[in-house]
């Protein structure tokens, strides 16, 4: 059984064959910002989830205008096919893809397996940063249908609709407030949003080469926890990056029509006065 929208995935071989394709822009989006300057796919440009994609002042993403400016600078036109890849099983690649969709960019894809698979296959990595001719990019209004905000998450939770907590089991149970060594990214309270089920993001990818699991495995994983295609689904994690991977899996690999990423995630919910929490 193939994925619901296989056109959202390409493999490393496809990317290797499109390195000089002017209609394609390859974007590396990593958790670790030094990986790109140390070596990236020839011709790939970099976005950084914090310095490039986040608003410089508010806790939000770049504005529509800032997004358009970023695309112009990276030589991305409205009809460019954009392929994302990155470290950590493509967490931040999915995060960047989600933001591109948020501002209406069509034709986005994930390179299955990300950096890990490209490296395993001993494909070339270069240090030169390419530069592309500036484009005139016009971003669309934000597509709120893929992004959940706290008020609707509360309504969703109260209605016991499908809510997926993709953090590690100890973060879900409230035993751990934040990842070790990342104290400032924590929250003042531990636990999870009431009605959320725990399906750690990592269960959707193969550990060996960071590729996504098969349709059959993914169906068993999510339907087994009652996360089904017929309702609205909201996914969250700690800052919204791991859950954008789950969002990608549910929306494009399994074809669920109504999936949102709650990017406020636990660092908002666990600090929110009066928000209900289950442990």
């Amino acid at each position, binding site marked *: 059984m193939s994925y619901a929208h296989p056109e959202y995935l390409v493999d490393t071989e496809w990317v290797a064959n499109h390195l000089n394709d002017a209609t394609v822009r390859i974007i590396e989006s990593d958790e670790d910002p030094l990986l790109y300057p140390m070596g990236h796919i020839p011709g790939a440009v970099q976005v950084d989830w914090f310095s490039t994609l986040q608003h410089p002042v508010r806790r939000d993403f770049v504005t529509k205008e800032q997004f358009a400016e970023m695309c112009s600078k990276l030589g991305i036109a409205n009809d460019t096919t954009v392929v994302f890849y990155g470290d950590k099983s493509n967490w931040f690649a999915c995060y960047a893809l989600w933001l591109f969709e948020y501002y209406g960019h069509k034709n986005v894809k994930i390179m299955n397996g990300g950096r890990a698979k490209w490296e395993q296959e001993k494909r070339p990595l270069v240090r030169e940063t390419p530069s592309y001719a500036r484009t005139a990019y016009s971003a669309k209004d934000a597509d709120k249908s893929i992004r959940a905000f706290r008020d609707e998450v509360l309504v969703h939770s109260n209605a016991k609709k499908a809510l997926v907590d993709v953090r590690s089991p100890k973060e879900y149970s409230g035993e751990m407030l934040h990842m070790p*060594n*990342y104290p400032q990214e924590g929250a003042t309270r531990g636990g999870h949003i009431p009605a959320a089920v725990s399906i750690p993001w990592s269960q959707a990818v193969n550990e060996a080469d960071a590729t996504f699991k098969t349709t059959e495995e993914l169906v068993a994983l999510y339907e087994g926890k009652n996360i089904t295609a017929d309702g609205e689904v909201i996914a969250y994690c700690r800052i919204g990056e791991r859950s954008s991977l789950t969002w990608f899996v549910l929306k494009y690999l399994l074809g669920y029509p109504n999936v949102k990423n709650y990017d406020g995630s636990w660092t908002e919910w666990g600090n929110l006065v009066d928000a209900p929490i289950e442990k």
Partner: protein
Amino acid sequence: MSLPPKLQEIVDDFAGMSREEKIETLIGYAESLPTLPERFAEERAKMEPIPECMTPVFLFGEKQDDGGVIFHFDIPPQSPTVQGLACILASGLNGSKPAEILAVPADFFAPMNLEEAISGQRLNGFRGVLAHMKQTAVNLMNGK
């Protein structure tokens, strides 16, 4: 109290660098982080990996005859930023006495202005590794 001289030197170096130089220098540190000496392999195998998805940092301290502490790290190459930050700490603090290590302020790196090169949130790892090093120094001081 002032920083150990080697650490102070690194802080001063970074303070005068451009963003590009900071990135290049961090890469240099990441690439020069020594691999974990073989004699720690057994201990390393017994240690619990950090039960999380971000970078697992393994840290070992050794007390020298003069009371100074030498730190060794095991950090995967997929996390060069953490490798680089750990290598800065090891380069700046190896050989220092536990009391000197404990006296390093948690925000000692502020003048390095690393936010230009890597996001401020990633610098939390810097604080985390330093906190681990201090704990290790205390343990060595107490003979653990």
